[in-house]
């Protein structure tokens, strides 16, 4: 045990930390600040644009604030978690490793004096920051634009009423969704030459997960997020499948459960990364 501690202490942690930061900086520059990411901006900000139109053209009757609260909850649960964040993260995180292999540029990183685990975690961190910043900012716009039209009542709701709690919950959902889907897509891109069939199966799995046995529900990002929703979304038909709360779980259990799932996935990704070979001709 003492040997293990000594070995851990002897590792060049400060160098790894510097490399991690620099790698992440390079990746964020390439992920976030690029014209090619326009479609992710679109996915993130399209609700804000629609809500902005609503702000301009609709008369905000005080009675419709509850309805708007339900609509915002629906946007988070049905649009962001199921479509926007899902496809956005699919684009961002699949590109991190598989995209570099397709572009035949991954070898430059594998030939740098950086441990492969550090490369992987830095890439994951950069992808997460990109996704969280984009979707977090978009959500903030959505929230503010949705209630600002109600004047004083809207401001009161946002600053003192149930608003702050709901906003925090939505933000937490967004962060966890980005991390959860991000880790899974990173894993799929390390496992398969074409991660898309796997990703689309995951999409289907996330949809049918509520009707699965309790144990299988643990292997789903959306099932954890569902327990964190501050407002239950009234949905009918097939959409009810996406919003139904199955077994009630405390919020902290859901958060820790999802973080544990992410940790397990990342550890597996590190193992895959160590064994990764550059064979572009077969990709």
């Amino acid at each position, binding site marked *: 045990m003492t040997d293990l501690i000594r070995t851990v202490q002897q590792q060049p942690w400060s160098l790894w930390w510097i490399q991690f930061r620099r790698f992440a900086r390079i990746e964020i520059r390439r992920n976030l600040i690029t014209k090619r990411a326009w479609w992710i901006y679109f996915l993130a900000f399209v609700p804000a644009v*629609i809500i902005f139109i609503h702000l301009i053209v609709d008369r905000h009757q005080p009675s419709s604030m509850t309805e708007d609260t339900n609509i915002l909850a629906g946007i988070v649960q*049905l649009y962001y978690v199921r479509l926007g964040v899902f496809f956005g993260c699919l684009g961002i995180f699949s590109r991190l490793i598989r995209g570099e292999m397709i572009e035949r540029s991954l070898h430059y990183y594998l030939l740098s004096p950086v441990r492969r685990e550090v490369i992987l975690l830095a890439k994951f961190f950069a992808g997460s920051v990109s996704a969280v910043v984009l979707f977090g900012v978009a959500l903030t716009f959505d929230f503010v634009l949705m209630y600002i039209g109600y004047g004083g009542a809207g401001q009161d709701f946002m600053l003192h009423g149930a608003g702050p709690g709901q906003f925090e919950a939505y933000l937490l959902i967004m962060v966890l969704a980005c991390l959860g889907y991000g880790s899974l897509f990173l894993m799929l891109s390390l496992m398969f030459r074409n991660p898309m069939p796997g990703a689309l199966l995951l999409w289907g799995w996330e949809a049918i997960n509520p009707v699965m046995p309790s144990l299988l529900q643990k292997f789903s990002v959306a099932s954890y997020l569902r327990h964190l929703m501050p407002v239950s979304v009234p949905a009918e038909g097939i959409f009810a499948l996406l919003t139904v709360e199955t077994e009630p779980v405390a919020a902290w259990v859901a958060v820790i459960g999802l973080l544990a799932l992410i940790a397990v996935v990342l550890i597996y990704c590190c193992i895959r990364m160590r064994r990764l070979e550059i064979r572009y001709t077969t990709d």
Partner: protein
Amino acid sequence: MSVFQHEYRPYEGPTTPLWKRPVVLARYGLAEAWGSKITIGLAVLALLPCLVELVLMYLADNPLAKMLVVGNSKVLEINERFFFNLLEVQSWFALVLAAWIAPRLVSFDLGDNAMPILLSHPISRFGYVLGKFIALVLSLSYVTWIPLLLLFVYQCYASPVPWAVGHLGVAFGLFTGALVWIVVLSLVCLAVSSWVKWRVVATGAIFAVVFVPAGVGGMVSAILRTRWGFLLNVPVVMSELWMRLLGVPPFGNPMFWFPNIAIVSVLVVTSLLCVAVLNARIRAREVVRG
């Protein structure tokens, strides 16, 4: 005079007629599409619902078997709604198959910068797209109108004559409805594949292009309190079209009951957008991105 000029003779034999050249591309496209085991797997999977429906038809048309298995239940009534449901199921399979096949047809050529080489052959850009389009439409026909019409023919054979006479419109609806869907779908898939360039990403992008506008449409309808946002939901629009083509009485959410002109406009605009994208992307040039 150089040796080259002495001995070189240009090819003077017969050449493929202009109108046949896209068919050559279609043939290679089909070989490329069906060379994947996943394509075969998906195609087999797509026929399973048809097999189930075939069994149901048999039961419905065989009074003794029907009595033994389901009693007098109305579940087994073979009518417009029955074929409508089957068309919906098969159209989802067509989407999955198209999302898998289309990137194989186009993205390889674009990803490897092969377009200048391909278009340096005596084939036009239109011919290139037409060839790929034919390959995709033929592949999708295999899971849509072909099995559906075969099932219809079986039903005509197995049921009393008045059924066939009374439901001839269903055959027309099945063929036209499926054809409209696979034509629009093929254009969308080819356009997305040519835009995205990477095969790996194109499959995901095709699903995103179908479902994200549906989600956006849902938001527009919810936030702006209007039903017109649902026009962005192509699956919903197609369902409405099929209902009318097959003569199914309206059911479901009344907010989806759009006028015919709106449905046709959505499909035409979508197709035109796809053609514009194809026109912009399928060019004999190497795109160098910084």
